[in-house]
């Protein structure tokens, strides 16, 4: 499988990372190197093998569906790049 520049641009878009057009050829080449390395996995017979979910076969624990935490708006917002009136502030989302 070979990745071209338009695929590289699509992946960057999906990952929400801005990549300038002039950087796309190098990015596509790097992807191809890494994916070429990964291609080795196709040599393995995986018929009937379950994909691993967790190294320890365990059921994730459940807890009571009750409030355990809260009332710390100031702490939650303390590290926000832009917080106003008790909210996270972001650029306008809807016109």
């Amino acid at each position, binding site marked *: 499988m070979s990745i071209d520049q338009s695929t590289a641009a699509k992946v960057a878009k999906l*990952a929400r*990372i801005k990549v300038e057009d002039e950087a796309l050829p190098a990015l596509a080449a790097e992807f191809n190197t890494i*994916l070429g390395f990964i291609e080795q996995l196709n040599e393995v017979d995986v018929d009937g093998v379950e*994909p*691993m979910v*967790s*190294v*320890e076969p365990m059921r994730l*624990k459940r807890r009571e569906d009750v409030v355990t935490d809260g009332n710390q708006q100031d702490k*939650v917002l303390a590290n926000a790049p832009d917080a106003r009136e008790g909210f996270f502030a972001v650029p306008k989302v809807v016109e």
Partner: protein
Amino acid sequence: MSDLNKLGLAEARDALRAGDVTSVELTEACLKAIDDADALNAFVHKTPEIALERARAADVRIKAGDAPSMCGLPIGIKDLFCTKGVPSQAASKILEGFKPEYESTVSQQLADAGAVMLGKLNMDEFAMGSSNETSVYGNAVSPWRRGNDDAQLTPGGSSGGSASAVAADLCLAATGTDTGGSIRQPAAFTGITGIKPTYGRCSRWGIVAFASSLDQAGPMTKNVRDAAIMLETMCGHDPKDSTSAELAVPNFEAMLTGDIKGKKIGIPKEYRMDGMPAEIEKLWADGAEMLKAAGAEIVDISLPHTKYALPAYYVIAPAEASSNLARYDGVRYGRRAQLAQGDGITEMYEKTRAEGFGHEVQRRVMVGTYVLSAGFYDAYYNRARRVRTLIKKDFEDVFAAGVDAILTPATPSASFGLGEMTEADPVQMYLNDVFTVTVNLAGLPGVSVPAGLDGHGLPLGLQLIGRPWQEGDLLNTAYALENAAGFVAKPGKWW
């Protein structure tokens, strides 16, 4: 006592309890060593006030006869651990200015046990790297040099700052984390001991996530006894981590008898790689001889899927990273890019992540995005997870055949020069983890023990891999190997 920073945890603990030294004296010695070692770029956020406050509190407890396991012992904390009120950036620009309002479970347990935090340690950005060259703080530098050559060498990665700091005696021990070898490879490169416990032993809560099914914390120390002491403090069930094991933590130090008579040690033939340097091959053979001389039985074993561990890892780890790192969006914490007039929320995400993530992190996030994307999920991600099942089964089969531990080299070479790999393609750098990454995929405990020097006088390490949850037994085998290898070399001080 002089050179207090050169002590290990056990020695310092015993000296503190005997009243020969105070925690304040130990801490001041380390703080001075840290200030003298800026050339190593190991400590990236120093916390002398916190350190001295905790040291004074520790001295009070020791005097009162109420000293917990690590009372008064000064250590460094990898920047990946969230520490309350102290910058915790995972060596990334995107977390610039981030000061957590909470403390990671592991660093809290260390603090509760009386350990003194000296500061935060350099690392590869988001723990992605094997040479500590992807850090926003710049490279961490190894205290080791090739003879009289003054070229700067890598302390390994991702826990490069931790390795450099412990090897240079800036602290008594340090925390590390290990997703593909990030404790064991830097430990091997710098002549120290590092153990990654079984997946689930140490809580991941409050540790910045890289690949959640692989990440584990562990200690990086000056010897095996110290690793046992510190690991016990770091382990334990935590309801805040749903994969944390509900198992009792044994007294690992008490299990260090050095007696390994009758233990079966496996030598996996697949780890004999083409082009392996002769000195690594010799070190490995010598290690097997030492364990045999100590009474162990050496058996040849096969782990047939070893070759596929690295490619499987480079699907699974980036896939999980792309998901985990989606949280860095410039909204809730860290750094937001400067926006242009008219930029909307998508531009905010894209610019923030392009500016905030370094090159290697961007590459892995995008590879992860690709292998998880519609049409490729089965071909890449699910196939890698199936191969992972087979890799784990390889280990289960040898353990079922009675093998107690597996001996391998820790790394395919000694430390290399900073910048030497810049021109290489990313896969060349990934090969550093060829002997360690299988252990993460299988969730097993693995320990790196310094065992010799190469022709340039650089440390080389051997790795022992244990059965799940048998860290005590594994550390005891490591202790026997340490005793036999008698590694005492230290880097000459040039910084």
